[in-house]
C-alpha cells in the first residue's frame, strides 16, 4: 500500500495529493514535489519516442532511506507519483504498475466527468485515506460548492449525476 499518492498537472501543480497517515502530509508534499525533478528528467530522456511506444510508467524515481518514490506520466503529461514505504517489500514493480494503471483509470473517469473542469483540483469522494483500498480512489466528484463559486453562469449541480461510461483506453 502506498503512503502517498499524487496527481500532478502538466504545469506541475498538484491536482490531487493525499497521504496516509495524514500527520506526515507536509513531508510527503515536499517529497513528491522534489521528485518532479526526476520526473522531468525522465520525460525529457524519453524524448521523441513515438507516442504509442512510450512507456508511461517511469519506474523508481528515487529512493530515500524510508520511502521509495515511483512515477508515471500520461500522454497528456499529467504525472502520477506514488510514495511507498521502503520496508514494504511485498510491493514489487508489477504491483506498482497495476496501482498506477488503476489510478490512471480513475483519473480518466474524472476527466470524463462532464462536471469536472480539466485543470481543477480533484476532490476525492473516498474521504477516508486510511481505507484498505488506498490509493485506488474509486470516484472523484467535483463538489458543487466549487462549481458555484467559480462560474456564476453554471446552474446548480445536479445531485448524483450519472457516471460516464468508462472510455476505451489503451492501457
Amino acid at each position, binding site marked *: 500500500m502506498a503512503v502517498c499518492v499524487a496527481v500532478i*498537472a502538466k*504545469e*506541475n*501543480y*498538484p491536482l490531487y495529493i493525499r497521504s496516509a497517515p495524514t500527520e506526515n*502530509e*507536509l513531508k510527503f*508534499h*515536499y517529497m513528491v*514535489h*522534489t521528485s*518532479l*525533478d*526526476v520526473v*522531468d*528528467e525522465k520525460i525529457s530522456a524519453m524524448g521523441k519516442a513515438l507516442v504509442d511506444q512510450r512507456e508511461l510508467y517511469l519506474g523508481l524515481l*528515487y*529512493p*530515500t*532511506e*524510508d520511502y521509495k518514490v515511483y512515477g508515471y506520466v500520461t500522454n497528456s503529461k499529467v504525472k502520477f507519483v506514488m510514495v511507498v514505504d*521502503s*520496508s514494504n*517489500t511485498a510491493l514489487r514493480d508489477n504491483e506498482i504498475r497495476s496501482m498506477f494503471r488503476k489510478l490512471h483509470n480513475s483519473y480518466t473517469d474524472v476527466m470524463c466527468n462532464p462536471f469536472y473542469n480539466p*485543470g481543477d*483540483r480533484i476532490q476525492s469522494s473516498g474521504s477516508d485515506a486510511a481505507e484498505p483500498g488506498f490509493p485506488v480512489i474509486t470516484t472523484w466528484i467535483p463538489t458543487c460548492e466549487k462549481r458555484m*463559486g*467559480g462560474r*456564476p453562469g453554471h446552474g446548480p449541480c445536479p445531485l448524483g449525476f450519472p457516471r460516464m461510461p468508462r472510455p476505451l483506453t489503451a492501457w
Partner: protein
Amino acid sequence: MDAPEAPLPPVIYTMENKPIVTCAGDQNLFTSIYPTLSQQLPREPMEWRRSYGRAPKMIHLESNFVQFKEELLPKDGNKALLTFPFLHIYWTECCDTEVYKATVKDDLTKWQNVLKAHSSVDWLIVVVENDAKKKNKTNILPRTSIVDKIRNDFCNKQSDRCVVLSDPLKDSSRTQESWNAFLTKLRTSLLMSFTKNLGKFEDDMRTLREKRTEPGWSFCDYFMVQEELAFVFEMLQQFEDALVQYDELDALFSQYVVNFGAGDGANWLTFFCQPVKSWNGLILRKPIDMEKRELIQRQEATLLDLRSYLFSRQCTLLLFLQRPWEVAQRALELLHGCVQELKLLEVSVPPGALDCWVFLSCLEVLQRIEGCCDRAQIDSNIAHTVGLWSYATEKLKSLGYLCGLVSEKGPDSEDLNRTVDLLAGLGAERPETANTAQSPYKKLKEALSSVEAFEKHYLDLSHAAIEMHTSIGRLRSAKFVGKDLAEFYMRKKSPQKAEVYLQGALKNYLAEGWALPITHTRKQLAECQKHLGQTENYLQTSSLLASDHHLTEDERKHFCREILSFASRQTDSPGQKIVLPLHCFAQLRDLHFTPSNAVVHVGGVLSVEITLCSQMPMPVQVEQVTINVHFSIDKNNYRKTAEWLTKHKTSNGTINFPTETSPLPAPQNNLPALELYEMFERSPSDNSLNTTGIICKNVHMLLRRQESSTSLETSSGVALEDGAHVLKCSGVTLEPGANRITFRTQAREPGTYTLRQLCASVGPVRFVLPHLYPPVQYDVYSQEPQLRVEPLADSLLAGIPQKVKFTVTTGHYTVKNGDSLQLSNAEAMLILCHAENRAVIYSNTRAPVTGGESSVLGMTESHRKHKDTQKAGQCMATTDHKVSIDCPWSIYSTVIALTFSVPFRTTHSLLSAGTRKYIQVCVQNLSELDFELSDGHLVDPDSNADLRLVPLNAKSPQTLYNVRAEILPPSGTEHCRTGSLCSLEVSITRLSDLLEVDKDEALTESDEYFSTKLMYEVVDNSSNWAVCGKSSGVISMPVAARATHRVHMEVMPLFAGYLPLPDVRLFKYLPHHSAHSSQLDADSWIESDGLSVDKHVDEQPDGGGGRCRGSAHLASGGEHRGLPMPRLQALPPGQVFNASVGTQVLVIPSKDDHVLEVSVT
C-alpha cells in the same frame, strides 16, 4: 619459470592469478620453451562455449605454469578452485626408442598413475622434435615411431592427447605451423577443463544452495564457496560472471532478511543481528578487504561487515567493467537497504552510528569514483552522484543536530559524551587512507570536533549539493537542500542568510502551486523576517498566513494578532504608512450601485455597496475603508455608459469580481481563458472545404511571457494613489467572512468616475487593492442643455454642399413650440436651407432626456470613391469657419468652429517649345470623393488681344454603353456542367444622357424621350459554348443615363474547364430607308421572348434543359418577312465598354456515364 613453490595459502589478488597448469617430464626442455609459450598463449582469443545456455565468450587465455607435484592435486572435498590445476602437461623430447623404453615410459606411467589416482583427466603429452638432435644420433627412428609408441601406450583411443611440437625455437614456417597447432590444442584443452571443472563446481555449489533450508546450513560457508567461483571468473577476466556471483549472494541474503522480517527466520541470521559496535564505513580502496573476508569466513561478521564486504567486491568488479556510475547508484541502494535491514532485524544501533556509517560510506564511494574518472566524466555524470552528496549532507546535518553542533550555545556535556561514543565506534583510521588528507574518516572526525568545523563541512557539502542539483536542472531538489540550509542558519541565528533560501524555495512552490510547502515555508519566512525586523514583509507574510486555511485556527489567530498589535503600537507615533496588498486580508466580492445604472445627475446621491470577504480568522476593527476614484470630464455622454451598462452590468446593478488570487495559486488561473473559433477555408473555385480548424483569437494574451517576478511576498508593486475623489466609510468591523460596506456620495461635477483602488486602514497599515477589475464606473451628468454640431461625413470639404447634424441634449430645458436655433455664420460659408425643412425631434426612450436632431444643410451626397488603394499621402489644407448659434435656453451665443478641408490641389507651370508657350494646369483631388472635371478653360482676365489661348485637351472618347455578361449555373447547382443549360445574363447600360454623337438615324424621339436602336449579338468564336435560342436581337435603348436593358439567353458549355465568356457585340441598328421602319423595328424586338426589358420580371427558369431552339430561328424569321435588311453600324471604338471581357467561368465535366460501344471482330 615463475612457478610458485607452494600455492597455499590462498591467493588474494585474483587479478594477478592465472589458471594453474602443471608441467612434468623434462623440466629443462620446458624452461627453454616457456618464454615463447607464455608469450604466444594469450595472443589469440578462443571461443568459450558455456553450459546452461550461457552465451559463448571470446577469451584470452593465460596460465601459470608450475612444476608438477602430487600435492597440487586437490584432495576429495577440497573446494578450492583458485589453486586447482586445470591441465597437466608432460614434456619430452625423446627420440630414441631405447631411451624411451628405459626412462621416459616409466616416468610417464608414474605421472599417469598419479593423475588417475586423483581422477584427473585433463592432461597432455608434448613431444618436442628437434632436428639437430636427431642428426647426432645414429640409431634414429622416424619421429613418428616415438609418438606412435606414446599414443599406443598412453593415449588409449585419444591420440590427440599427444602433441608434437617441431623445432620450437627455430624460425621457420614449419615451426610456426607446429606452434599454432600446439597452441590451439592447449587452449582447447584448457577451456574444456574449465567447462568441465567449473561446471562440476557449479553443480556442487547448487546442491549446497538447495540445502539452505536444512538446519545446519551456514550462509557464510556458502558465501565462501560461491565467492571461489567468482574469484575464478575474475581470474579469467570474466568480470561480468564474477559480478553475477556476488549479485546472487546479495539477493540471497536480502531474501533471507525479508523472510526474517516476515517471521520466517533462519537461525544463522540471528548472528547478523548482533548489536552494531563499529561503523567505520565502506572500504573500497583494496580489491579484497581481507579483514572482513576473514570475519565472514569465521562467521563473525555483522550485517554491516557482510554488506560492506559484498559491496566492496561488487564495486571492484564494476570498476573493472568501467561502470563507475552503477557503483554510485548501487551504493545509494545499499545504504538505504542497510538502514532498512537493520530496522527490520531490530538490530540495536547506537543513535548516530548509522549516520556515521552512511556519511563515511557516501564519501568513500564518491572518492573511489573520483579516483578512477576524470573531471569531465564526473561533471557529465552528476546525476548519478548527486544522490550520494545529498545523502551525505543529510546525514551530516542530523549528526550535527544530534551532537549539539547546530545551536548558538554549542554542545553540552551530554552532547559531548555522545560525540565521544560515536567517534569511538569509528575505530582507528585504516592504513589505506591514513595518508589521504581529505579521507572520509578525517572529515567526519573533524566535523564532529567543533561547532565551527561542523559548520564549515556542512556548508561545503550543502553548497556542493545545491550547485550539483542546479547544474543538472534539479531546481526543486536544490531548493529543498536550500531549505535545510535555511533551517540551519535560523538555528545559528543568522536569519539574513536564511532569507534568500526561504524566498527561493517559496517562489518555486508558489510558481507551481504547492499549498502545504507554501504554508510551511512562509511560516519559516515569517520567523526569519521577524528576526530581521523587516516589518513590512513580516506583516505581509503574517497576513498571508492569517488567511491561510492550511494552518490551524490558533496559528492563524496568532498571525492576525501580530498585525493588529503592530497596528496598535504604531498609532501614537504617526509615521510611515505600511502598504500591503488587500487580497490576503480581505477579498472584494461584489459591488452594487444605487441607482443601479450608476448614472446620477449633479447633486444626486449615489451609494456604493461592496461585499468584502474578510480572510482573517477573527473580527478586525478597520478605521477606514476608502475607494479612490478617478474623475474624467469626458465626452462620454450618458449614452455610452448606458451601452456599457447593458454589456457589463447585470440587471440588478451588481458587479461581481473574480476571486482574485485564491490561497492556492495555480498557474493556469492566471491565464485568460482560450477564445476559440471555428475556421473553414473553402476552395475559391468550387467552394469545397479545403481546411478546417480552430483559431485562438487571444494568442497574444496566452503566449505572453509570464512575468517571473509575480511573487506575492514582495510588496513593492502596491502604490497608494492619492486622488481628490475618495469614497469613505469609517469605523468598520470586518467579521470573518462576508461584510457589507456602504459608501454614500453626492454627485458634484459631471463626468465619469472610475473606481480605482480600494484601501482598508488598520492603524498605519493600509491594505490596498491596487486595481479594481473589471473596471467600475459611475457617471454624473449635468442637466444643462447642450448643443453639438457635427458633420455627417468624416470631414467637411470646402466648396461642396454637405450635411451637418445638430444634436441638442435638452437636459432640464423643455423644447417649446416655435423654439429655434439661430445661426449666424461667416460669409464664406453658405447655408443651403430648404424652406420647408424643419427639425425632427427624436426622443430617446431609454434616456431620461430628450434630444433633437435636424439636418440643416442639404444637398445630394457625392459618391464616395471606391478606392482600394490607400489614401494619397498628401494632407488637405483646412480652413475654419465659425458659426455662432443662439439657443433659446441661453442668453449667450454658442460659437462652434467647423473645419473644412480643401479637396483640390492645383499646380500650374509654363512650358516652352521653340517660340510656343504651353501652360499646364494640374488639378489633383485629395479627398475621397469623386469629382468630375468638365469644361475646363483658361481665361485671360486682362482680355489682352494679343494673347490667344488654344486649349490642347483632346476630347476624350465618350463611353456610351457598358455591356456586362454573366453566366450562371442552372438553379440549384453550384457549377456549370458540360452539356447542361446555363443562363447568360447580358445587361447593357447607357452611361450618359443625350450627346452630340447620338444624333443619327437610329435616334427616335417621342415626347422628349429619346431612344436609339441597338442590336446585340452573342458570338462564341472559340466554340466553347452553344447558344440556345436567339443569339441576337434588337433593342430600343432609352437615351438617358443609367438606362439598362437586360437580356437573358441560354447557353450550353461544350467543354469543361475555365471557359472564357462568349463575346457580346453591340451595333447601331439603322433602319432601312423606309417610312414604316419604326413599326417593323418595334415588332422585331417585341417578338423575341428571350429578352426582357429593365425591371421586367424574369421568366421562371425551365426545369430541364429541354427548351433549346436552333440559333437559325432569328435569321429565318427575318427572312420570312421578306423585307429589306436594315443596316448595322459598328459603334466607334471607345463607345462600348465590355465590363466582362476576360472573365472566365468554371465548367466541370458532367458526371454522366457514357456508354462506349466497342465491337470486336
